[in-house]
């Protein structure tokens, strides 16, 4: 993957203000919206995810990169829709009931979007049944559950149970500070992601395993 392109660099550095001009340059050069996403934006977010995984950057640096990515996607959205281009995969994500922490989940949502997954974000403090309904409605391949507090780990267990009881064929990925691989296994989640960078690898492994 080529990370040298100015647009890719702007994503990595999180320079949101530079995004419109750089996206326009790509379009002027005749690049298709889908190619811009694939060749310019995705490598940028991947690079950011890698840096985060290697503990080279701090949380706000990742947040601004995500916002720059979002800005670029917003500018390209109408073209992507017009061209009938849809991300190959879809995910529903949210922080479980009782937990108001958004950021860990937002980082993962950003990284998944960066990996060109269509992400439906239900926000924080989401009750189990709302997850079930969203999965029924959007039919995602992935469901991401986040919890930052030890006290909300039972809510995560309830959510996984509700999804399983509803017989939905979605792969459940869980993560957050108090979560461990053992806990994921114990409550019947399909995978555990230890951080936002890792969440992409985990998602890809699950999606490819399914394909």
């Amino acid at each position, binding site marked *: 993957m080529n990370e040298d392109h100015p647009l890719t660099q702007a994503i990595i550095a*999180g*320079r*949101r*203000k530079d995004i419109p001009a750089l996206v326009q340059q790509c379009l002027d050069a005749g690049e298709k919206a889908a190619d811009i996403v694939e060749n310019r934006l995705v490598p940028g977010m991947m690079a950011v995810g890698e840096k*985060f995984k*290697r*503990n*080279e*950057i*701090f*949380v*706000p*640096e990742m*947040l*601004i990169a995500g*916002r720059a990515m979002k800005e670029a996607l917003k500018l390209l959205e109408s073209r992507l829709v017009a061209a009938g281009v849809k991300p190959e995969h879809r995910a529903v994500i949210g922080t479980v009931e009782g937990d*108001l*922490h*958004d*950021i*860990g989940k937002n*980082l993962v949502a950003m990284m998944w979007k960066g990996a060109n997954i269509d992400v439906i974000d239900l926000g924080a403090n989401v009750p189990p049944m709302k997850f079930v309904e969203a999965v029924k409605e959007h039919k995602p391949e992935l469901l991401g559950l986040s919890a*930052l507090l030890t006290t909300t780990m039972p809510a995560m267990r309830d959510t996984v149970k509700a999804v399983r009881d509803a017989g939905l064929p979605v792969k459940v990925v869980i993560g957050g*500070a108090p979560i461990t691989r053992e806990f994921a296994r114990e409550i019947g989640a399909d995978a555990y992601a230890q951080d936002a960078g890792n969440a992409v690898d985990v998602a890809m492994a699950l999606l490819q395993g399914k394909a």
Partner: protein
Amino acid sequence: MNDFPAIPLLEHRPYDRIRELYLLQEPMLLAAIRRGDRGEARRIINHVLVHIFSAGEERSDLLKGLLLELVVMISRAAIEAGAMQSEVLGMNFQFLTELSGINDDEDLAAWLRKTLEHVISTIEKQEDFTPPILLGKALDFMRRNLHRDISRDETARHAGISPSHFSRLLKARTGRSFTELLRQCRVDLACDFLRRTEKPLVEIADVCGFCDQAYFTRVFQDMKGVTPRHFRAANKREHEITKQTHRITRPNRR
């Protein structure tokens, strides 16, 4: 306009948890920085930052306050751990002034990176030996038990560190092994007795944990370049000279 309207908000309970979380991680953070493991240091700080950004997501004034508090807590730890006070505080003042002028996520991210990397550097850079709490506990135990035969394992156990970790920590922080450091402490204590008392050498050897006077003399000479007897004599002469100088420079007042 008030530069830091967030500070009064920090009084509220929800933010205590962030503080507690940080304090819980602080020993690990300092240990990581000391090992020169910046990656691990960033991982620990990021863990706290996730909480901070969750709490301050919608409120940039609050976010600034919480970030400022984090920087201040790490700076306090840096000073506690022996970093140059003037450097840390001078830096904080400069960065604080900058923070008040920031109104943009990108600038804030850059500010935080610069500030945190700088604090980490001040901890890394410290040259004088100020032991972290556990190491300090171990050294204290050693000093109080110099008169008897103590082992590395016993000392480590006393400080609540594993023996192998204790050895690594000692080597990293003092450049010496346990045996070398113990010998150094014994010789230091002996020097003290030689200077301040008229105790016979055989007795000093005993209270400083040397098995006999001959061994004491050999180790002492190895380390100081002179025998204990010469050290005491030289010290006495020096003492006399100092006393005389003192008399000359500060004549008795009437």
